[in-house]
């Protein structure tokens, strides 16, 4: 299925991507599975999603946890804890 992924702040800099559209294998259907899938891209990706740093995820503009289900057409975002205000 096709999804859009957005990266922000420290994470955007670490992977050097801000937005991408990718075709996911059908067995990748949760945030955890997506993180593991992206980790295969190389050391910087693997290091990012290793769990050493806190990464928040959102699907379609809603904060979600690692077990959240990804559907075709979703906009997934990865970002560090927020620091506005």
């Amino acid at each position, binding site marked *: 299925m096709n999804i859009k992924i957005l990266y922000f702040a420290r994470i955007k800099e670490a992977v050097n991507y801000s937005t991408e559209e990718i075709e996911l294998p059908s067995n990748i259907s949760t945030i955890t599975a997506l993180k593991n899938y992206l980790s295969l891209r190389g050391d910087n990706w693997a290091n990012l999603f290793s769990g050493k740093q806190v990464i928040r995820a959102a699907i379609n503009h809603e904060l979600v946890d690692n077990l959240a289900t990804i559907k075709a057409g979703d906009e997934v*975002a990865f970002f560090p804890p*927020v*620091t506005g205000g």
Partner: protein
Amino acid sequence: MTVRIQIEDFDVGLELNKMRLANPSIGAVASFIGQVRDINDNDMVSTLTLEHYAGMTEKSLVTIEAEAKNRWQIIDSLIIHRIGTLQPLDQIVFVGVTSSHRGDAFKACEFIMDFLKTQAPFWKKEMTNAGERWVEAKLADDDATARWNK
């Protein structure tokens, strides 16, 4: 119940006047301004750059305002948050809440700020005399949010 995300500065006096004159049953206006400090974690800050997740930001702030309105008797609320590059003493954020009574206005205003701090997708990068760095999220902000759990 308004949210504005903007690069430009805002005029607090103007916004407060518009809010308080909107309804003669308003007896109380609580408001908050956040601004860039000159020193953070012991280093001199020259600029602060705010990045956000357009679309999600607005949605999360509208949700926070709706929850405040659900919890307290408020008449209206306004959130203005700037993005882009700012300097010390520049205004970052404004939250204003109107109500018939002060207790509701104060609580709703502080609630909105506490949730904005931990829920709204903004990130700050600061340029300091020690170099450029992302501002770290603070546990104290998580605690401030958690205390509102009913």
